Every structure is written in C-alpha cells, then in structure tokens.
C-alpha cells in the first residue's frame, strides 16, 4: 500500500501566544492509503476544518508534521503538493472562478502551465466524468448547487490529483444535489480508484467511507470502520451527531420490545434481522 497523506502528532492553536488556550487541533495522528475513502466527522468547531487547512498548506502545524506522499509539507514543496490535491469547498458559488463551466474547469490547469491542447482534452474528459459535458458554456448563475459542485469536482480531477478533498461539499445542497455529488464521487472512485478525504457532519455520507475519523474538541476521539464508529451510539449523539437511519430504527425497535439479533448499519440488514428474529425460528 502506498501512503498518500499522514498526520503525525499534529497540533494547532489559533492563539499560540497563550499557553493554556484551547487548541483547535490537538495531537492528531492518522494516515490515508492509496485508494481509500476516509471521512472526518464531528460537529461544527471540532477541528475538522483546521485539519483540512493544514493539508492544503493554508496553515502549518505548530507541533508534529503533515506528510504528503511521504514528504513533510513545507513552504518549499507547497505548490507541488497543491497541484496533487483537488479540493471542493462548502459554498458552490464562492469557488467558481471562471466565467463559464469550461473556463472554471481549466483554472487549475492554467495555473499549473498545462499546454493548450492537453488542457482542452482534460477539460472535456473531466466534465464527461462528472456528467456535465453538456454544460460547457453555461454560466454559473444558471446552474443548480449540485451542478456547480460537480463542476468543482471536474476542476479538481482535471489535475489528476493523488487526493480529492471534499470539505463539507454537500452541506449547502438540497437532497437531490447531495445525491448527485455523492453518486459522482462514488462513480469516480470505481472508475479511477481515486483517494478521497471527506469532511462532513452528514452520517449517511460518512457511511460510504472505508474508515471514519471521529473528531471532538480538537482531538481524535475514535477511528475505525463505519460499523465500529457507529457502534459508539449515544456517544455520537452526545457530541452533536446523528446515528444513521437504520441504527436509529434498530434502537427504537429494541426499546419497543421488538426482538432483534444485533445492531445494523443498513436497512436491508435490519429488515432481514426482523424477519429471522421474529418468524424464522
């Protein structure tokens, strides 16, 4: 396995001059391997966004180190690292730089001096990959939120990054837009084996991840597969998150005295358990 990104005992404080001030990120370590999808979950103010800023080099850790492709991230290799990371932000409007869809997708390519012929090819393929190739000349204010986010994804993957970061990219979208974006990312992963780091407080989105990093108050509270993390149950709720639908139903059923064999992450499992525990004895 190839390591794409790792945090080693990283801490960051927005007011480092005060020694006792609460640190936004405290002694966090984790790593992402090639092809993985990692979700960082936590309520607002849990340190998620500070972590993202340290990946993209908008902030540098005060303690510990961030490594990208095994190299410690520094001012010197910053731009090279950035060209290997694609990022989609929360507000679809505020990251759309180009006058039209194709101009926006080309923006990072232009910045990195990709030659014209190559650029045209890449813009078209990327837009096909997110199924926005029919909107080449559309202006941003004629697109829905979900469409704008798909354009942002196309702009990111046009650089053929080693890592795609979704920084609460679905939180301002309607349910339809959210589905569009998540479907796009899943299809991309199947097609290209893209490594994804998503920051979210949407548990249904986190369920797609291979591993979840659960942040609370600047610290890594837990790390594991979705099953392991959601087994924490009420602890998550206490920290301002929700449980996935199937788990909430499992708990409710149990509280009403319905017999079940175990906890379930998906509806199918739950329905099957309902059947086997109650009829198939």
């Amino acid at each position: 396995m190839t390591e794409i990104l790792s945090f080693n005992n990283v801490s960051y404080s927005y007011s480092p001059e005060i020694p006792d001030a609460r640190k936004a990120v405290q002694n966090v370590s984790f790593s992402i391997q090639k092809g993985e999808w990692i979700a960082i979950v936590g309520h607002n103010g849990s340190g998620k966004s500070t972590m993202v800023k340290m990946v993209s080099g908008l902030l540098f850790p005060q303690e510990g180190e961030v490594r990208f492709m095994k190299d410690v991230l520094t001012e010197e290799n910053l731009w090279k690292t950035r060209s290997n990371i694609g990022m989609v932000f929360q507000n679809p409007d505020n990251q759309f730089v180009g006058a039209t869809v194709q101009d926006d997708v080309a923006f990072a390519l232009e910045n990195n001096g990709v030659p014209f012929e190559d650029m045209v090819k890449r813009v078209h393929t990327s837009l096909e990959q997110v199924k926005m190739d029919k909107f080449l000349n559309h202006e941003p204010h004629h697109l829905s939120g979900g469409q704008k986010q798909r354009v942002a994804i196309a702009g990111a993957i046009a650089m053929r990054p080693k890592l795609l970061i979704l920084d609460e990219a679905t939180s301002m979208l309607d349910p339809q837009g959210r589905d569009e974006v998540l479907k796009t990312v899943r299809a991309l992963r199947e097609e290209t084996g893209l490594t994804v780091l998503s920051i979210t407080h949407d548990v249904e989105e986190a369920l797609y991840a291979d591993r979840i990093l659960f942040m609370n108050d600047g610290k890594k509270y837990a790390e594991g597969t979705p099953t392991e993390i959601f087994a924490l149950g009420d602890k998550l709720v206490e920290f301002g998150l929700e449980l996935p639908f199937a788990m909430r139903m499992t708990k409710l059923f149990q509280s009403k005295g319905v017999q079940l064999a175990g906890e379930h992450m998906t509806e199918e499992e739950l329905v099957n358990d309902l059947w086997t525990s109650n009829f198939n004895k």
Partner: protein
Amino acid sequence: MMEKMIFGRYIPGDSFVHRLDPRSKLIFVFAFIVIVFLANNAVTYAFILAFTLFVIFMSKIRLYFLINGLKPVIILLVFTFLIHILFTREGDILFELGFFKVYEEGLRQGIFISIRFLVLVFMTSILTLTTSPISITDGIEVLLNPLKKLKMPVHELALMMSIALRFIPTLMDETDKIMKAQMARGSDLSAGPLKDRLKAVVPLLVPLFVSAFKRAEDLATAMEVRGYRGGEGRTRYRQLKWDWRDSSSIIVLVVMTAVLIFFRS
C-alpha cells in the same frame, strides 16, 4: 426599465460580427470612433451612416430591437438636435414661426451631429451586443500586453475584471434577497423623507458588504488551493483566433479611412 435597456448586454449569436475576434472588433470600434470625426459633409456623413447600417445588418441584430433598447439615448439625441436647430444662426432662414427661426446651417449641423452621435452609439452597442464580456476582457488583456513591459499589471487587471463580471449576477440576487428580508422586518426603502431613506440603506449595505467580503475570502482561498500564484508560468485556456474575417475587417477600416479623407471637404 432596467430590463429593457440593452446597453452593455450580450446577445449570443453566430453572425459574421459575432465570430470576429474580440481584438479586431475592439481595434475596429476604437478606430471608428476616431475616423467618424473625419466626416464633414453630406457625402461622408451619408457614407458612415450607410456603413453603420451595413454592420448592423451583418450582425443580424434587429434594428427595431436596437432602437427600442436605446430609447433613453435617443431622447438625448433629439435634444442635441433641437439645441443645434435653435442656437445655430447661419445661412438662409428655411422657415420661421414668430420668433422661432430655423436656419439652413442649423439644420445641417443638427443632422450631422445626430448622425455622428447615432453611429457612435450603434457601433459601441454592436460591440457589446455581439461580444461576451469575457471575450472583451480577453481582447483587452491581449491588446494591452505590450504594457506589461512598463510593469502594468495587465493580467491581474483582466482577471479582476472577469471575476467582477462573474459575480455581478450573484451579488444582484443577494441584494434582492437582503432587501426583501429587511422589508419583511418592516424596513421601508421607498417612503419618507430623504434622511429616513438614507438610514434605511444601512440595513441593506452592511449585510451586502459583509457577504461580499466573505465571498472574496472564500474565493481567494479556493484560488490559492487551486494553484493560482499570479500570471507567471500560466497558460491560457481561452485562445483568440485571428482569421480572414478579422484581416478583412481591418482592410475595410483602412479603405474606409481613405474614402473619408478623399471625399471630405
């Protein structure tokens, strides 16, 4: 009112004029603004008027649409025409009504000035109507490129212009939303003495600035993360193509200048 205005609007199309390179269009219009002043007699004025009508025809934009959209400008035109008629007192009196006299020279000057005014407005409107704002920006950037040697931040200016253009509709929507929200809270922008109305603007302007700054901050972050660090080493996705249409329009320009010089008195 605003919706009927076509000044500064872009109407997509694929006419000869639409397909011209923005550079040739910009050069053409700016040169045209200068050579219009060569016209000084009936023949030359008739010539530039006829030529302008020909360009409108080539752009496939309906004359009716142009005139309808430029109504406010046309009022100004009629006004200048009347001024010339009333205040120029040379040549023969054509007719008089009491103390109201129309002189031959006044009528001549009035018509000439009106034609000059009209062709200038038409030509610049055709430029903006047939060229998307972003192409105009591209054209200006390339034409101003030599100024880079004088340390003029040409690329930055062009990028600023294109981002501004990109955010105009977004900020218009935002203004409308905030205005509605404050009206729903009982703020009244349309009534009362001037002092009250000025006060009522504060609840609109403060949120608008706050949000514009927030957007600017987000945008700057997004641009930085996407690898933007100034114009150096950058390639261009939007390529300008100069073809036979552009060369021929410049030839037309030269011929026209020659004709005007030859026929002017």
